[in-house]
C-alpha cells in the first residue's frame, strides 16, 4: 500500500518514542510497586497478621507494637501508606514516634524489619554483585550459545551438531542447583581451582573474576543451551533465505556469506529471546547466588523472604522491575539499530 516512502525515523521520532516508553515504564513501576505493596502490607492484615508484629518479632508488648505502628505509619489507610512510600523514594522520609525521630534520605526504601538498617544501602551493596553475575553470564551465554548454534547449523547432521545439541539439551534440562553444586564439588572442593569470597571489581579484579567464574558458567550453561538451539534453528532458516542465495550468486566466499549476511540476521531472534530472558535471569541469579554464597540481590531477596522482611522484599522487587523495564527498552531500541525496517514510534 505504501510505496517508496522513505523511512521517517528521525531523531525527533526516536526521542518521542523514548519519552513515551519511559512514561510507560514509570506507570509500570507504579503498578508493580502498588501490587507488591498490597501483597505484603495489606493481604497479611486481612489474614489477621499485623506487619507491625513482623517488625517487633517476639516482643509482644502492646505499647511497643503501637509505637512501631505509629512510627512506620502502619495505622494509616493503605493508599496513604502507599503514597508515603512513593513519596519517600523521591524526597526521603521522617519516621517519628514522639521523640524518636529517624531521618531517611531519598531514595528511601524504608528500614529493614530485621536489621533496622536502611534498605537502600543494602540494595546498592547487593546490586553490583548481581549485575556482575548477570552481565558476565549474559555475555558468556550469548557468545557461547550463538557460536555453538552456528557451528551446529553449519555442520548439520554431523557429530559436532549432535554433540552440541546433546550438551544443549542437558543444559536446558539440568537445574542450576544441580549443575552449580556439581561444579562446586568438582572444581572448588575437589580440585581446589576456585577459592575465596566475592570481592568487588574495584577492590580486587582478579579475585572478582575468580569468585564469579563458576557462577557465570553455571548460570550461562542454562541459557547458552537455549541460545544454541535458537541460533541453530534460525541460522538454518536464514541459510534458506533468498538473500543468502543472492549473496552467493554475487560470488562472495562462503565465509563472508555466513559471517556477514547470515549472522546479521541471526541476531534478531537472539535479541528477542534476550529481552524475554532478562526477567527470568533474576530468578536464575537467586539460585546461583544462594548456591555460591554471593552477596547479591538474589540472596538478599531469599533472606528477606525467609525472615519476612517486608521493606527489603519491596525494595528488591522494585529494583528488579526497574532493571527489567530498562533492559527491555534497550532491547527494543537495539532492534531498530539491527533492523532498519523497524521504526520506533
Amino acid at each position, binding site marked *: 500500500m505504501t*510505496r*517508496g516512502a522513505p*523511512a521517517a525515523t528521525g531523531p525527533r521520532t526516536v526521542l518521542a518514542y523514548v519519552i513515551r516508553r519511559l512514561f510507560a515504564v514509570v506507570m509500570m513501576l507504579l503498578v508493580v510497586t502498588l501490587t507488591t505493596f498490597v501483597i505484603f502490607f495489606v493481604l497479611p492484615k486481612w489474614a489477621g497478621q499485623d506487619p507491625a508484629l513482623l517488625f517487633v518479632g517476639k516482643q509482644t508488648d502492646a505499647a511497643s507494637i503501637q509505637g512501631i505502628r505509629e512510627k512506620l505509619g502502619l495505622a494509616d489507610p493503605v493508599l496513604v501508606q502507599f503514597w508515603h512510600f512513593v513519596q519517600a523514594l523521591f524526597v526521603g522520609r521522617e519516621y517519628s514516634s514522639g521523640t524518636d525521630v529517624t531521618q531517611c534520605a531519598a531514595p528511601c526504601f524504608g528500614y529493614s524489619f530485621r536489621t533496622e538498617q536502611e534498605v537502600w544501602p543494602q540494595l546498592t551493596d547487593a546490586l553490583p554483585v548481581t549485575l556482575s553475575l548477570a552481565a558476565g553470564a549474559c555475555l558468556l551465554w550469548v557468545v557461547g550459545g550463538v557460536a555453538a548454534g552456528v557451528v551446529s547449523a553449519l555442520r548439520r547432521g554431523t557429530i559436532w551438531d549432535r554433540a552440541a545439541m546433546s550438551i544443549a539439551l542437558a543444559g536446558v534440562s539440568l537445574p542450576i542447583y544441580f549443575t552449580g553444586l556439581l561444579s562446586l564439588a568438582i572444581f572448588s572442593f575437589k580440585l581446589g581451582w576456585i577459592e575465596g569470597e566475592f570481592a568487588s571489581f574495584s577492590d580486587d579484579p582478579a579475585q572478582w573474576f575468580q569468585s564469579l567464574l563458576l557462577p557465570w558458567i553455571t548460570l550461562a550453561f542454562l541459557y547458552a543451551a537455549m541460545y544454541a538451539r535458537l541460533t541453530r534453528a534460525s541460522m538454518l532458516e536464514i*541459510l534458506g533465505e533468498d538473500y543468502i542465495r543472492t549473496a552467493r*550468486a554475487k560470488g562472495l566466499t562462503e565465509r563472508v556469506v555466513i559471517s556477514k549476511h547470515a549472522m546479521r540476521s541471526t541476531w534478531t531472534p537472539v535479541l528477542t529471546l534476550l529481552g524475554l530472558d532478562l526477567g527470568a535471569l533474576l530468578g536464575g541469579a537467586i539460585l546461583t547466588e544462594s548456591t555460591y554464597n554471593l552477596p547479591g540481590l538474589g540472596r538478599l531477596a531469599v533472606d528477606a523472604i525467609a525472615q519476612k522482611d517486608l521493606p527489603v522484599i519491596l525494595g528488591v522487587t522494585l529494583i528488579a522491575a526497574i532493571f527489567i523495564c530498562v533492559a527491555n527498552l534497550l532491547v527494543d531500541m537495539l532492534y531498530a539499530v539491527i533492523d532498519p525496517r523497524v521504526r520506533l514510534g
Partner: protein
Amino acid sequence: MTDFDKPATAASAAETVPDTTVGVPQAVGSAPSTSFLEVRDLRVHFPTDDGLVKSVDGLSFQLEKGQTLGIVGESGSGKSVTSLGIMGLHTTGQYGRSKARVTGEIWFDGQELLGADPDEVRKLRGREMAMIFQDPLSAMHPYYTVGKQIVEAYRVHHNVDKKVARKRAIEMLDLVGIPQPDKRVDSYPHEFSGGMRQRAMIAMSLVNNPNLLIADEPTTALDVTVQAQILDLIRDLQKEFGSAVIMITHDLGVVAEMADQLLVMYGGRCVERGSAEEVFYQPQHPYTWGLLGSMPRIDREQTERLIPVKGSPPSLINIPDGCAFNPRCPYADVPKGNVTRTVRPELQQVSSGHYSACHLSAEQRTRIWTEEIAPKL
C-alpha cells in the same frame, strides 16, 4: 524435547548417502563445447527422506552471446533448479545432508564448470554470470543499504576502494533508471517500490558486466506496467552489452516478447525446444499445446472456453513412468501399445533446431495441431 531436534535426529538416516557433491563429467575428455554456454545432460537430484527428487533429469541446450533463451514451465518443472545449477549454487553452502547431486556438463565460455575447482566457479559467479531473482524484496538483504550491496558485488571481483565502488554503484543505479541515484544509493531495499527494487537488483547483477544473465521470473512479482518497464530495461541492456540471457518464466507472453529460443520443461525434462517462432506457431508437444490453450489471451476477440490441461503437475519424487506427461495427455493412447506409459520419449529433431520429446509421430502431431488445437486458440 522440541522440534528443534528434528533435523538433527533425522540426519543419521542420510549418513550413508555417498557424497557426490561435485559431479565429474561422465565422459572424461568429451569434446569441449564451441558454444558460449552449453549444458549437456544436466541432472540435479536431491536425496530426501521420501526418496530421490529428480528436479532436473537430463537437460541439454546451447546458448550464444547476444541471444535470449526462454525456459518455460510450471512450478516444479525444474526451471529454477536448472538456473541455480548453472550458477553452481546447488553445491555451494549446502551444509550437512541436503546436498544436491549435480551431474552432466556445463560448458561456459570454453570451460567446464561441474568438474572445475569450486573456487574458480565462485570467481565466475557475479562477474561472468549473474542472476536476477523473482522477488527483489526477499532477494536483497533487508539490513544493508542498496548501495552497500552493490558495492559489495563489485568489490568481490574488483580490487578497488569503497569510494570507487560507490561511484560505480551510483552509475549503475542511474543506468537502470533510478531517479536521484546519488541519494537512493543509501536507501534500504524496503524503502524502494517493487519496480525500483527490481531495477536495483538488475543494477547489482550487471555491475560487473557479466556475459550471461539469468533472470528467474524477474517480473512475476511486479505489476503489469512495471513489468513492461523491467522487460524493456533488460532488452535495452542486452542490446548494449551483448550478453546472453536466460529468461525463466511461466508466462508465455513474456517469453514471446523476449526470447529467441524457447525451452519448455515438464517434470524436470525438456519436452520441446526450438526457436520462439517455431514453438509458438508450430508447437510439437501436447504439453505446449496445453499451455497455449490454458492461457486467457488479451489479444483475442473470442471468449470461448479455455482448454485446460487436466490434472496437476507430477510430484518429482514419483515422476510417472514413460512420458512424464502421459497421465495428463489427451493423446496418450494414440501411439500403439503401452509405449507412452513405459518408454521415456527422447528429444527428436522435428525441423532444423526444433526438438520435441513425444511418442506421437510427426504426422500425427501436425494433424492434431492444425486440425484440433490451432483452430480453437
